[in-house]
């Protein structure tokens, strides 16, 4: 089972421009990993290294302890699903899936047909005539039905309407239950996907900001609301993500785990402690870096 991914000080330069800087993380086990980052943060490039589309300039990348680049067994276990230009694709869906079936040993044809039906995709139309949403759905079919041990969806939802995106999310969860594997979903639309993720990686300007499991990450962020002076006093020394004020009432988002005694103290001071969403954390953490 292919379930270990290691990045050790991985950097990438393209045309002397730093694209990824000294990235290190370890993914362990068949989970759903969310790779978050703003547009241009380096998400796609990082994922393309995993799929052996290119090699890092420095550092080491290992999958199950082996370098994936030009490693037949490993490359065959990684599917990288991204928004591909299919404007010239005269082939129809059956022809494209035939290729997947030939080269992906775990491909499930029945499941592919089920998904095609679910996404309402036409079998008799050339793929080049597909709408953006249909192309995204086709990509999802290829990624899910290919059943590769490492399946990467790079902003696969693009162009999909809300109901179709919902089908995609449900299928990812169902697949993970039935055929556990490493799913990596990259996105900058965090709010509607956060419930999918077991672990989160946030990348910004080519550097890894954090890698944590979902529960720890969201429990670390908190919003403190109350009178200005009390809030200011309470959050002193803590990592502040954002501040908002209306009259004398102030709300501050912090990125620091609160101890039990701190929570009791806040309550005694009349402060309100709220949770903050992954989306808020993502927005403010990446904004802080600018």
């Amino acid at each position, binding site marked *: 089972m292919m379930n270990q991914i290691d990045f050790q000080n991985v950097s990438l330069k393209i045309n002397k421009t730093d694209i990824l800087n000294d990235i290190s993380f370890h993914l362990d086990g068949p989970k759903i990993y969310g790779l978050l980052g703003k547009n241009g943060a380096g998400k796609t490039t990082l994922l393309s290294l995993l*799929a052996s*589309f290119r090699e890092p300039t420095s550092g080491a990348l290992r999958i199950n302890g082996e370098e994936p680049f*030009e*490693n037949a067994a490993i*490359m*065959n*276990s990684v599917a*990288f699903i991204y928004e591909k230009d299919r404007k010239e694709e005269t082939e129809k869906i059956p022809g494209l899936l035939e290729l997947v079936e030939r*080269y992906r*040993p775990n491909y499930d044809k029945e499941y592919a047909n089920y998904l095609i039906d679910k996404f309402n995709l036409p079998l008799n139309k050339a793929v080049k005539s597909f709408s953006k949403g249909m192309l995204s759905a086709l990509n999802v079919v290829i990624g899910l039905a290919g059943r590769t041990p490492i399946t990467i969806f790079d902003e696969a939802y693009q162009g999909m309407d809300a109901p179709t995106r919902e089908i995609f999310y449900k299928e990812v969860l169902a697949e993970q239950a039935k055929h556990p594997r490493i799913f990596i979903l990259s996105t900058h639309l965090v709010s509607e996907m956060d419930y999918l993720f077991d672990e989160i990686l946030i990348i910004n300007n080519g550097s890894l900001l954090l890698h944590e499991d979902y529960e720890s990450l969201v429990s670390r962020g908190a919003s403190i609301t109350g009178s200005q002076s009390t809030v200011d006093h309470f959050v002193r020394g803590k990592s502040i993500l954002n501040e908002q004020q209306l009259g004398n009432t102030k709300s501050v988002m912090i990125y620091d785990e609160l101890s039990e005694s701190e929570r009791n103290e806040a309550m005694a001071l009349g402060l309100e402690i709220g949770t903050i969403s992954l989306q808020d954390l993502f927005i403010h953490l990446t904004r802080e870096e600018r």
Partner: protein
Amino acid sequence: MKQNNIPLKVAFDITSVQSGWSIIFFLILIFNNIIKYISSLFHEGGEIGNFFNITFSGSTVFMLIIGIIAAYTFLPLYVNHGITRKDYFVGNTLAIFFISLVLLAVSLIITGVEYTIVNLTNMDITFINEGAIENEENIIANFVLSIVLSSFGDMNNVPWLLSIGVFLIRAMFFYAIGWFIGASFYRAGVIAGFGSIAFSIILVSLFDLFWEATEGNILAQYLSLDFGTPSLFISFIGSCFLIAFLFVIIRTITKRVSVRL
């Protein structure tokens, strides 16, 4: 999860796809010959090149173009399907041989049909034979044509292996040239791409020298290079060496190439 016979699978797929493209190529040639036949009906004793001759000349451009397309199409496709660059390279190399075989087979079948029709209908047609066309493009074609045409006489004395060999080697060489140019553009951009075209012109001239095509040959013109009349053995070995040399360069270019998204 290592799969067996990946290069063979790749070779089969590329051969199917590119042989499919050759249908258009053959249809154009057939259409071209039909027009010539019709026009020859109005001129007594018309002379036209037979289908093999036309395919022989046309196949170089066809193979060159599909070679260029291969570099841009198949490498990203197969890496995206989890195939290593090495397996893709071996598969595409095998495919060149298979596609050349397909071209040869189809060309010979259509030529056979052509001769049968002309004989059955007693059309007043003369097929242009060796030496009838003097431009350098057709010298090699006529060389092979003379051999193939003789097959319609004494079937026992036809050096089939030779005619097939020359056709295959020429087709493979031009595909490899196209693949090399395409891979150079893909890997290193426009400047290196144009450099590869310049280098290819030299390689094509060298190839032509092995087959006595000196007219308009830049190596013959500027360097006064002339192999004279090389023996067939030298011609074959020299041509094979050039093809192998191209494969080595292509493999070097694509060995660690980054795939574009």
